[in-house]
């Protein structure tokens, strides 16, 4: 084949990025617009058939660098210096037509959210073969044959027919694999994976990760694997580059980075998951007691909670763990009264709570606060931080004027933010700061219980760690109890006193932390525990072999 012949002429060094500099124009509050540098003279190289991991928190420039290998700058970003040599030529100088020939043929891209990246109006197969047909690499029949082979390789169900479905007809994990097939279909030299498993459940992530790893191995394609999760990258990458604030911190082979990190920042990343937390003993009388609660959506048709009973003791943390669709957020909705349970009762602080939110007295509402997963949408974008935190003070305690502003300042101090933030709007805060403001808002009510619904899931590991530490400190000071909903077992280990594992609406395992995390495990808890990526090379293969049940595949 012509392609095979051409390959022999291609240089060994596939991608060579030299002194890359990327800039963007920003419009900061209270200041004139200015140009900032996102990526400072980063150089990296990638050999044919190898996998390079790009690691860093948000704003580190990892996606920006990844996309520069396709000569693409996202959202007003400008590549202002340096060279990107792909197959021996600088693609930054190619011009629009030349770049179009490179994209989809030599480099392909796998986005974080496959659901948003596929066009919902076209069948999957049409989108999978599109690039191959556009570049004239294969005829439609050949391309479809190749696509089916790729579906098989990526262990998708019904590889022959899945291409006839529309994007909404397959699950998130499957869609991510179809997207990988899309990237592989035109047989590129390089694929950029931009956080392909971040939006997935742990149990699904492991399947997708294994599929991607096998596909990379069998097709000898080179890859840039972008993620903020070092443990995930360690499973697929040969080499790792650690980035921070657009600068290269450290590069080395995978073993060296995770075992012998040279830089302090890399050490912090490797050690990030560990918070020491000693388990508290249950008190004689629980503060929140959920008894035999059954709840359903759609007027009783879809049962999402089946006979759930859990207790939470004053000043302690109960973690509710499970994958998406297990009913853990629904449990929170039942406790807050947003979804009145069909059966069962919820008692709080010695009294039984009304089922419906509208029937509860103000005092009950004050005692029970909630923090959301998406801090962005949990705050009114049109209110300043002062209004957001100050409103519960006005509403519950009737504070006004100076008294209220002073308390707002105290609360801002508590969440380790200065008073200067009081006049900012949510759009002017970073992700971690937004979540801190949400914490301050719930603390303002002086509650006895705060329900934390996946509060750290949308955050970078180091930022999430800061939030967890803050929550633990605040628990010490304010003696507040947390109902902590999460799918991340590392978080659970660092914060919980008791754990309830949920699966398809039922509590499958419940007890003090030490007891729940102690073998023997039931099959589902085992699956959950074994799916948490560990900072070890070769963990993925061991975990896949050792599994006793399939994930629910959400």
């Amino acid at each position: 084949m012509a392609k095979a012949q051409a390959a022999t002429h291609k240089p060994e060094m596939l991608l060579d990025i030299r002194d890359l500099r990327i800039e963007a124009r920003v419009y900061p509050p209270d200041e004139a617009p200015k140009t900032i540098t996102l990526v400072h003279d980063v150089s990296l190289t990638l050999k044919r058939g190898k996998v390079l991991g790009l690691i860093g928190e948000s704003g580190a420039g990892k996606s920006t660098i990844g996309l520069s290998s396709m000569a693409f700058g996202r959202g007003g970003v400008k590549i202002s210096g340096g060279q990107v040599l792909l197959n021996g030529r600088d693609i930054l100088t190619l011009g629009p037509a030349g770049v179009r020939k490179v994209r989809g043929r030599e480099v392909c891209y796998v986005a974080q959210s496959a659901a948003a990246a596929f066009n919902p109006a076209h069948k999957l197969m049409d989108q999978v073969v599109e690039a191959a047909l556009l570049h004239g690499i294969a005829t439609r029949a050949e391309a479809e044959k190749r696509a089916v082979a790729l579906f098989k390789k990526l262990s998708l169900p019904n590889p022959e027919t899945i291409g006839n479905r529309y994007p909404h007809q397959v699950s998130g994990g499957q869609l991510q694999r179809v997207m990988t097939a899309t990237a592989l279909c035109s047989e590129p030299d390089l694929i950029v994976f931009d956080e392909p498993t971040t939006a997935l459940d742990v149990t699904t992530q492991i399947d997708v990760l294994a599929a991607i790893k096998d596909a990379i191995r069998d097709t000898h394609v080179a890859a840039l694997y972008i993620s903020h999760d070092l443990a995930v990258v360690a499973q697929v990458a040969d080499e790792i580059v650690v980035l921070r604030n657009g600068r290269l911190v450290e590069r080395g082979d995978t073993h060296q980075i995770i075992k012998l990190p040279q830089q302090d920042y890399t050490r912090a990343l490797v050690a990030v998951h560990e918070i020491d937390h000693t388990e508290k003993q249950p008190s004689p009388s629980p503060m929140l007691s959920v008894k035999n609660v059954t709840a359903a959506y759609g007027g009783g048709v879809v049962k999402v909670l089946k006979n759930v009973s859990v207790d939470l003791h004053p000043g302690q943390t109960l973690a509710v763990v499970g994958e998406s669709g297990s009913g853990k957020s629904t449990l929170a909705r039942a406790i807050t009264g947003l979804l009145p349970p069909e059966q069962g009762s919820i008692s709080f602080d010695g009294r039984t709570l009304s089922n419906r939110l509208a029937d509860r007295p103000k005092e009950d509402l004050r005692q029970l606060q909630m923090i959301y997963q998406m801090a962005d949408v949990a705050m009114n974008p049109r209110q300043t931080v002062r209004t957001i935190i100050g409103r519960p003070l006005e509403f519950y305690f009737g504070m006004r004027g100076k008294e209220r502003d002073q308390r707002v300042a105290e609360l801002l101090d508590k969440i380790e933010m200065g008073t200067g933030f009081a006049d900012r709007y949510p759009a002017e805060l970073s992700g971690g700061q937004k979540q801190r403001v949400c914490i301050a808002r719930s603390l303002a009510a002086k509650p006895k219980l705060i329900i934390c619904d996946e509060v750290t899931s949308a955050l970078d590991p180091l930022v999430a760690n800061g939030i967890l530490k803050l929550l633990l400190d605040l628990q010490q000071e304010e003696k507040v109890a947390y109902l902590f909903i999460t799918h991340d077992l590392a978080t659970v280990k660092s914060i919980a006193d008791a754990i309830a594992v949920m699966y398809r609406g039922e509590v499958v395992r419940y007890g003090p932390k030490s007891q729940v995390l102690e073998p023997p495990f039931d099959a589902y808890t085992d699956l959950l525990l074994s799916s948490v990526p560990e900072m070890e090379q070769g963990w993925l293969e061991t975990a896949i072999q050792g599994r006793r049940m399939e994930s629910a595949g959400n």
Partner: protein
Amino acid sequence: MRQIPFTAWIGLILTGLFLICAIFAPWIAPYGNGEIVGDVWAPMSSANVLGTDNLGRDLLSRMIYGARITIFIAVLATALAFCLGSILGFTAATVGGKFDMLLSRFVDLLMAIPTLIFALVVLSVLPTTVVTLILVMGILDATRVYRLSRAVAVDINVMDFVEAAKLRGEGMGWIIFREILPNALSPLVSELGLRFIYAVLFLSALSFLGLGVQPPDADWGGMVKENKDGIVFGIPAALIPAGAIALLAISVNLVADWVLNRTSDLKGGRGNG
């Protein structure tokens, strides 16, 4: 008020001029509203800057008094439409259930009847006064505003911050005016610009048909009607009020566009990013 774009300046100046004409009409106008000052359809001259109309009245003075009537009725009708439409729309979205159902179907019922015919029927039964005109126009326009604000509010109502407010125990007033309204402002402001112009055009249409402002007073639409026969003879008197309607439409919308840009900014208007 720094960095007002060029187009917004044009809009602000023109709208300002129209408003000044409307407010100070008796002082600005060179002649009285019904005063006959010369020949029928006299050409432009130094005495009559825009010429005279079909009865020999000074067209410039008529235009200035017309601005007063047109803008006064259109502003009040639009204000009524927005207050009524948005409050009912927001309430329907927040309360939901049967209330929403009843109100929405009632609005559908009103909208199913062509607006102009509905207005014609009502106005031919009721005495044609300025108050009835404003009420009829306001209520008919409110149906459109209701649909828009309900649709916008339904989307906002399911956001986490509204849920957070409900969990806090906030009343309906806070949720509608402090949580939903500020976030619904952008589409409403752009609709406001359009609705005002529709009100001007609607009033003109009614006057043209003889059911709007009654002579000797006239709004711009009525003036088009009075002078329409002149077009056949090449007399531009009908085109001048028509042009004024177009100019008002454009200038009001230039201002609305600018306000829209300001209100859609999530950083309190501090950046333009």
